[in-house]
């Protein structure tokens, strides 16, 4: 059972890898600008905040929860930094305050989800509206910029070799998360709870604490991403990061993480990120923009699951017809509602 699951996961990642390679090849053939180092860095930088948040979102979804409020927390943290800056508070302090507000927002979500037992979809949907509203209270109809140079450089200039600091941060975070999720007791708890909350509880896992930790981390990392976004754009408005949540969730789901929890890996998510970013970049370079881009990503999302499913049922049918056994086979009894 486990080995079958394992091989299936491996195939999923194999499929993603194949697609990434294909997209890179097509891009490289289509346009000479694609392979330039500056474009390769831009490709990450333009979406760096989303992919940072996608990492923690993966853990949350594996844990069978969801956090729809991430984009609003990103906006809120950025607005806290900007608001305090406009009040004359040093930006360094503002950044700390922004991070703290993010962690608090996450803890607030976590409290209702872990300790009161409300569904995370409902709580974070309220959060999506509420935290965005809080950001709006701080900023109103203003646009606040004029941050000190060091802050702008943080987001806009290469600080580590040719790489901006946010990119380095992403890879560090990816490494950290890989270890936490796949090599630590905490990671095993995350999977266990995602598979079955009750089983995990009976086997002595402190379910509430794991969930709380995840949501605080989600708030904190979203805040960090929001502040990096403020630094990259050099100014903050009330709608900063609005609507990012669906993109982020798309990346995680394309990475093979089950929406019902308990399965998926960060390698898959990383590959899905690579796939989406390269695909978007390639399309932009041949002037396919706007809705067509989102549409293609939508088709990709569906086909990436539909294709393997078709292949499997085709194979089952082939085997069945070869064996000539008539009865209701395995394919018919497997859940129509995918697990």
């Amino acid at each position, binding site marked *: 059972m486990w080995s079958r699951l394992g091989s299936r996961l491996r195939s999923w990642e194999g499929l993603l890898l194949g697609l990434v390679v294909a997209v890179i090849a097509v891009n490289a053939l289509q346009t000479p600008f694609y392979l330039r180092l500056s474009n390769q860095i831009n490709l990450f930088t333009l979406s760096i905040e989303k992919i940072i948040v996608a990492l923690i979102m993966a853990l949350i979804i594996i844990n069978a929860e969801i956090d*729809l409020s991430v984009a609003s927390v990103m906006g809120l943290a950025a607005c806290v930094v900007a608001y305090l800056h406009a009040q004359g508070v040093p930006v360094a302090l503002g950044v700390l305050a922004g991070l703290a507000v993010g962690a608090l927002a996450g803890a607030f979500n976590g409290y*209702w989800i872990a300790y*009161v*037992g*409300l*569904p995370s*979809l*409902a*709580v974070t*949907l*309220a*959060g*999506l*509206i*509420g*935290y*965005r*509203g*809080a950001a*709006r*209270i701080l900023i*109103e*109809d203003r646009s606040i910029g004029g941050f000190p140079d060091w802050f702008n450089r943080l987001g806009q200039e290469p600080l580590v070799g040719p790489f901006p600091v946010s990119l380095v941060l992403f890879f560090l975070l990816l490494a950290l998360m890989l270890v936490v999720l796949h090599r630590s007791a905490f990671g095993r708890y995350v999977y266990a709870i995602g598979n079955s909350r009750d089983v995990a509880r009976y086997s002595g896992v402190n379910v509430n604490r794991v969930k709380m930790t995840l949501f605080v981390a989600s708030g904190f990392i979203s805040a960090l991403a929001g502040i990096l976004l403020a630094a990259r754009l050099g100014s903050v408005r009330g709608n900063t990061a609005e609507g990012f949540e*669906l993109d982020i*969730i*798309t990346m995680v*789901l394309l990475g093979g993480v*089950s*929406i*019902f929890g308990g399965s998926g890996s960060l390698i898959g998510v990383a590959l899905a990120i690579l796939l989406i970013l390269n695909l978007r970049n390639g399309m932009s370079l041949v002037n396919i923009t*706007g*809705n*067509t881009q*989102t*549409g293609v*990503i*939508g*088709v*990709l*999302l*569906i086909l990436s*699951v*539909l294709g393997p*499913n*078709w292949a499997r049922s085709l194979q089952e049918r082939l085997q069945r017809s070869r064996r000539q056994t008539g009865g209701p086979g395995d394919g018919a*009894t*497997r*859940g*129509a*509602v*995918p*697990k």
Partner: protein
Amino acid sequence: MTWIRRRFRPEQIRELSLLLLILAAVLFFGSQIDNYYSARTFNRISTSVAILVVVAVGQTLVVLTRNIDLSVGSIVGFTAYFVGAILAQHNGMAPWAAVLLAIGMGMVMGVVNGLIIAYGRVPAIITTLGTLAIYRTILVDLSNAQTIITASLPQWVLELPRTNLFSLAGLDLRLMVGLALLVVLVFQLVLSYLPFGRLLYAIGSNPEAAQFAGLPVRRTVFLAYVLCGALAGLAGFMFLARFGNITVVAGQGMELQVVAAVVVGGVNIFGGSGSMLGALLGTVLIATLEQSLLRWAQISEFWRDAILGLLILLAIATDAVILERLRAIWARTGIRVAEE
């Protein structure tokens, strides 16, 4: 009191707790806003509920089976736009034909969703996240950035939102509101009395068990999506009639509003429990909050969303606490507590 306990399960009178919440909201805003208790307020809230609740009914069908449909906003926009475009070309089209066209258009999109989810075995959230983008892309690409404008629509469409079923001392029951209530009623009856309704609950409570029991899981899930699409199509038509000016962003973000209404209405997001009445009350509660906050003069434009988010959370939490209490009372008096 005991007869209540004997006759009902806690889940069934949770609608009562929603009703109490709505009442509390109305009382509160009544003390804050001048002229709040007026026919006008009723008309405003009821008309803003009408479109949303039709979509919420469809969403409930799907959510009951432990699935979700995030593409409804795009379906509403798509049908509103293209039915509008067709009506603008053929002003003489019969009203019933236009409505059927809208329902049919929505149904086709529902069929696509349903095929991929039920027969292609692709998780609902992945499928509908995808079709959310795909339907909107088709809309934008085919529209050539034209806007559907009121002047190009036939007169009967423009008069539709103004038509009353009856009017009592300024208290109007608009045709569209009546239609929406009819949809709620019909589907509540379907849920309660038809085998299809019971199938939805059975599948949502435990998809694997339903499968092993030989229930037609795929067909049922498929049908739920087709109906959800059809209802979103109907809502698209109502959207067209109400707002008249349809741009390519019509209905954008409606999916989250609808999911919020359904969840607040006590429909379990993990399937298996909930009712159309709940979905209606959830929609009414959210619309009441939204419309009242818009009219609360003390609240600045910039504070509205923060308060709305907090109130929604409060509603969900209160509802959960009340339900918990009810369960405790039922348990204490030794009457069987319904499992989820």
